[in-house]
């Protein structure tokens, strides 16, 4: 049984406007780490807040553990949430923050203590019990927020960009830690982020959203390698997938699959392009080449190639070389719907 399910869920903030969330159907699996990924304004946070009960759906249903919860208040849904700002209660100590949900449920004092100690030990923050939130570092605050969320062993864990307030260095380690932590406690989690690296690294499955619509649901490999449409193709990956327009089709391929002569890619048939490099960026381990395709159906289109720096010899600005892409790495999209379409042969010079 799905822990969380949404059926045709829609949220329209202002009558007459486009919905912030439109007809979303979603099913999470037991113990899964489900990531909602999308740019700002894609509706991912609104979707999460509707699941939490902080936002009322305009239409559609939300089910938690098989039960429709539309009319339940947040407190009746038995969920836990970690907010972007952590929303720690500033006037309460770390201990009192952690036991707050237990107090609200009327858990006996002794049980509160053992639960709080259990939650804190999982996160290694017992020594912070006496402090106030303002005396904590960003990483410590995040742990306190997590401890407060798990302390009553919820059936569902909602996380709203919990890493976005950490600095870049801390974020990588916090990401790994959070992922390990979720695996260990095995609680289903729904995690909202706009950061594709976080989504790829942590998610069991990723829900890619844009403009309130689910574009694709799949494992990280699915959404990266087999994007359902041009939005997913260009939103994931940096630099984004090259999308070249021919007369009746859009052809996409990843920059790392667009390879210079003498660089063996995937086995199988290759498609060759004449590529004029206009400029390049040296990024240490790799080099990004920007240029134009010459001749053929895609003549004059811009493309990007990403290659290891060790293979960049002889690829100077202004030069023209024959680059190739394995045929299996070419993705085809319908120019009208921008959705994936059947592969076909393409003419090259």
């Amino acid at each position, binding site marked *: 049984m799905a822990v969380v399910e949404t059926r045709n869920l829609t949220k329209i903030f202002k009558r007459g406007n486009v919905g912030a969330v439109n007809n979303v159907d979603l099913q999470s699996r037991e113990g899964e780490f489900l990531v909602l990924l999308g740019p700002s304004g894609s509706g991912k946070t609104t979707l999460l807040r509707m699941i939490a*009960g*902080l936002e*009322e759906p305009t239409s559609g249903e939300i089910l938690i553990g098989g039960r429709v919860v539309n009319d339940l*208040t*947040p407190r009746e849904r038995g969920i836990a949430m970690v907010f972007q700002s952590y929303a720690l209660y500033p006037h309460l100590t770390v201990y009192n923050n952690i036991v707050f949900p237990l107090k609200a449920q009327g858990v006996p004092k002794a049980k509160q203590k053992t639960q709080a100690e259990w939650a804190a030990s999982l996160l290694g923050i017992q020594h912070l019990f006496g402090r106030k939130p303002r005396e904590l570092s960003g990483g410590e605050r995040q742990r306190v927020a997590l401890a407060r969320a798990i302390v009553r062993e919820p059936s569902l864990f909602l996380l709203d960009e919990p890493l976005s307030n950490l600095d870049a260095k801390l974020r990588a380690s916090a990401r790994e830690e959070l992922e390990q932590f979720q695996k260990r406690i095995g609680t289903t989690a729904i995690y909202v982020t706009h950061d594709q690296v976080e989504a790829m690294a942590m998610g069991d499955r990723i829900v890619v959203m844009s403009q309130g619509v689910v574009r694709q649901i799949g494992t990280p490999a699915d959404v990266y390698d087999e994007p359902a449409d041009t939005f997913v193709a260009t939103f994931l990956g940096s630099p984004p997938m090259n999308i070249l327009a021919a007369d009746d089709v859009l052809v996409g391929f990843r920059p790392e699959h667009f390879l210079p002569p003498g660089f063996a890619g995937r086995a199988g048939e290759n498609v060759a392009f004449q590529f004029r490099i206009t400029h390049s960026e040296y990024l240490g381990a790799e080099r990004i080449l920007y240029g134009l395709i010459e001749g053929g159906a895609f003549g004059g289109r811009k493309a990007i190639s990403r290659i290891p720096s060790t293979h960049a010899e002889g690829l100077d600005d202004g030069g023209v070389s024959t680059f190739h892409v394995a045929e299996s790495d070419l993705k085809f999209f319908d120019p009208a719907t921008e959705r994936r379409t059947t592969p076909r042969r393409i003419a090259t010079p």
Partner: protein
Amino acid sequence: MRRGWFGRLVMWGVRIVFAVILAFPFYWMLITTFKRNTDLNNLENNPFLFNERPTLEHLRLLFHETMFPRWVLNTAFAGLVVVIITLLLAVPAAYALARLTGNWGAQLGIGVFLTYLIPPTLLFIPLSKVVALLGLQDSLWSIIIVYPSFTIPFSTWLLMGFFKSIPKDLDDAAMVDGLTRWGAFVKLMIPMSLSGILTVVIFSFTLVTQEFVYALTFIASAAHQTVGVGVPTFLVRGDVYYWGSLMAACLITSVPIGILYNLFLDRFIEGFTVGAVK
């Protein structure tokens, strides 16, 4: 957040009950203003209704046979001069305390604000002596001189907050571009904080209209009074209350001031809550 119908009902109940109680006297002023005396003085009548035809007699009496128009003019004149004095002194002071003096400028600013808390009821006795020494007793000028003693502290405090919210880089850029410090203040800071200055103008003016104790103490004759004191003390002849005219005067005075004040109230509250809202 979700709130049930019961919660919503309670919220509306609270809003309406409070609004009715708080606004009731003003509604009562309005009703009384247009009622005939025979209607007002008949205990058999339902006081909420017009039992006789409404009348403009009270308004006529107020404007033609009392000094009410004179008091309005007095108040407006005093308000105007107080506003000018306040601006001339408070605007440069606020800028200097916000920008030109370091930490002790901030301390001095707090000190200035604290003087706002010293009430008229502590100062009116010695000030009446000061007023007498200046030969201003029973003159409108007595309050014109004294009122800036409370409009300046609050205005300086408000404007300090305003100037502090303007990035320092702007002054620096202006001076790099060739203005002097004074030039930056006059040509850049004053135009940029016009809304703050407008707030100060409104407040100084409304504070003048609201003040009661000093005007009551320093001014003895009706001709020199302000509205706030003149209406409740001189409009009453002996023990006879002309309630119709009195309430008309109350209504005419309070509602415009109320509207003016209300427009700028949020800024005023900011002045009080600096530091406490975080």
